């Protein structure tokens, strides 16, 4: 049987987070009542003219800069003509000839954990269409134009992805990037990030491309992975059994975990692209490009490197924290008040993250000042507080009383540890007196019993004795 390799290219549509639409001032919010965010321009009334939204151009360029692209200096716009009820003008404004960004690359981790560079073909600006509903009425299709004209960028990759896992990593990386840049909320379920995949397979070692299938309607990152996986299996099975298949568009049924044929379009679409005369060109000047380059926020891989190299965090911690821009900011805020970075990472990924999960809360709604976490860390490092009482007792109380000092809460809860040797020795003497036979066994060589004594002393001190002091003192008492 022939071994095949997959060749995958992805097209991602990114809905830009602007307040108004791309070419007119209608609101661009998600979820408004139908047809309440429209105007004569978005409805294409005769005589209306489009006008660029500054913010759209800026966000498109930021994405290009983040992906190391060349920024096109002289931008023109084109009309992509097709006749459909969700497109009132009869054409979509897009950039066919002069995509605002070309070239570029993004790094992802492949399955062996190695960096792999995926080349970007182009990014261009365009506008979204309205929404048609076919199943609400027996005879009519209902159309809502709120989305018509909402700004999009389309991001096209080279066919550099070799597996469903790599496609998953790529989309995750893009989603992380758009969130870091604040140009899109990255919500695939609501359609603000949409992904289409071009998938083909070929015998390993060959260089020609096989028949290409386009998969649409994958509304989550894990579905992108599942859809590509199942499509690769389908194509492999067909070729192995001597069959061929056609180049077509397929949808993905998430329940069955399979792709299915969508009706192929009769006669290839003829979009009759031509230049959009209603929009003047946009020229990106040196000064403007410089200004945008300087305003670019730290990117996930830069922060990852900083956490890993400058703050010496383990790879896992650095990766997990930088998954989320806001979590990273919180973590960095803690590190401004403590030099125990590893502990700050543990708090961020442990107690804080589980608290957020339990409360179904986002870090931005978590109002505890990061310096309080540093106070907790400081008390632990001074052996005044055990890790478990800090996270299980003090932290929940601190969240309820964010203005109280950590020390005062710990005192109030009576969980400050003591390393008062006299006090601890007293407790040790009591414990040892309770277990004369175990003491005997220990002295006869059963050293494993040390843990039992320490545990009993800790229990008798109600967790307040400093475990390190207890350990030393127990050994001393037994020798």
């Amino acid at each position, binding site marked *: 049987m022939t071994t095949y390799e997959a060749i995958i290219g992805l097209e991602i549509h990114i809905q830009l987070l602007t307040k108004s639409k791309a070419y007119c001032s209608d609101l661009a919010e998600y979820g408004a009542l139908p047809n309440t965010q429209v105007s004569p321009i978005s409805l294409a009334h005769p005589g209306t003219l489009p006008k660029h939204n500054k913010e759209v151009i800026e966000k498109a360029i930021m994405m290009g800069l983040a992906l190391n692209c060349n920024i096109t200096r002289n931008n023109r716009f084109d009309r992509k003509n097709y006749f459909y009820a969700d497109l009132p003008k009869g054409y979509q404004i897009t950039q066919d000839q002069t995509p605002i960004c070309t070239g570029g690359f993004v790094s992802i981790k492949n399955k062996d954990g190695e960096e792999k560079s995926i080349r970007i073909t182009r990014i261009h600006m365009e506008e979204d269409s309205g929404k048609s509903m076919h199943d609400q009425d027996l005879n009519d299709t209902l159309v809502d134009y709120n989305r018509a004209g909402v700004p999009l960028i389309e991001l096209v990759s080279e066919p550099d992805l070799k597996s469903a896992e790599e496609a998953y990593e790529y989309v995750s990386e893009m989603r992380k990037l758009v969130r870091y840049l604040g140009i899109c909320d990255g919500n695939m379920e609501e359609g603000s990030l949409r992904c289409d995949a071009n998938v083909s397979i070929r015998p390993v070692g060959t260089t020609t491309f096989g028949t290409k299938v386009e998969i649409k309607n994958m509304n989550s990152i894990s579905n992108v992975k599942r859809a590509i996986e199942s499509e690769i299996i389908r194509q492999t099975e067909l070729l192995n059994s001597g069959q061929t298949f056609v180049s077509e568009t397929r949808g993905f049924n998430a329940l069955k975990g399979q792709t299915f044929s969508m009706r192929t379009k009769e006669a290839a679409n003829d979009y009759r692209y031509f230049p959009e005369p209603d929009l*003047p060109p946009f020229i990106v000047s040196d000064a403007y490009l410089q200004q945008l380059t300087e305003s670019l926020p730290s990117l996930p891989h830069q922060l990852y490197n900083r956490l890993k190299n400058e703050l010496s965090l383990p790879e896992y911690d650095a990766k997990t924290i930088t998954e989320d821009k806001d979590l990273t900011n919180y973590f960095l805020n803690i590190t401004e008040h403590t030099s125990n970075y590893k502990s700050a990472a543990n708090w961020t990924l442990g107690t804080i993250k589980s608290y957020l999960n339990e409360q179904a809360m986002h870090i931005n709604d978590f109002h505890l000042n990061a310096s309080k976490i540093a106070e907790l860390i400081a008390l632990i490092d001074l052996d005044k507080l055990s890790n478990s009482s800090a996270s299980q007792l003090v932290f929940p109380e601190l969240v309820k009383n964010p203005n109280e000092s950590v020390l005062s809460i710990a005192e109030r809860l009576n969980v400050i540890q003591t390393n008062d040797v006299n006090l601890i020795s007293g407790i040790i003497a009591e414990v040892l007196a309770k277990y004369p036979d175990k003491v005997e066994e220990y002295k006869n060589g059963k050293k494993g019993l040390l843990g039992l004594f320490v545990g009993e002393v800790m229990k008798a001190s109600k967790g307040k004795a400093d475990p390190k002091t207890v350990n030393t003192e127990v050994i001393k008492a037994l020798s």
Partner: protein
Amino acid sequence: MQITDEKINQLAHLSRLTFDNNEKAKIKQDLERILELCESLNKIDTEGVEPLIHMTNSVNIVREDNPHQEFSREELLKNAPKKDSDYFRVPKVIEQAK
């Protein structure tokens, strides 16, 4: 340039129009005359001349990202041939087989 029946059918499909045979013949004639007229432009030497896309030399005409809703839904639905209180209504558009 000859306009074929195939071309007429394709253009009709793209613009979602239907013609009977008499109309087709007439449109064919019209289109051929339009193309003929356009072909006269080929007599001009356009070597090195950039296509004229815009009627002015304006560039970088942009607006701030400030949303603005001028008209109500009711007003905007007014001109639609078919509508209800919330939606524009159009004939059922499900991808049609040939």
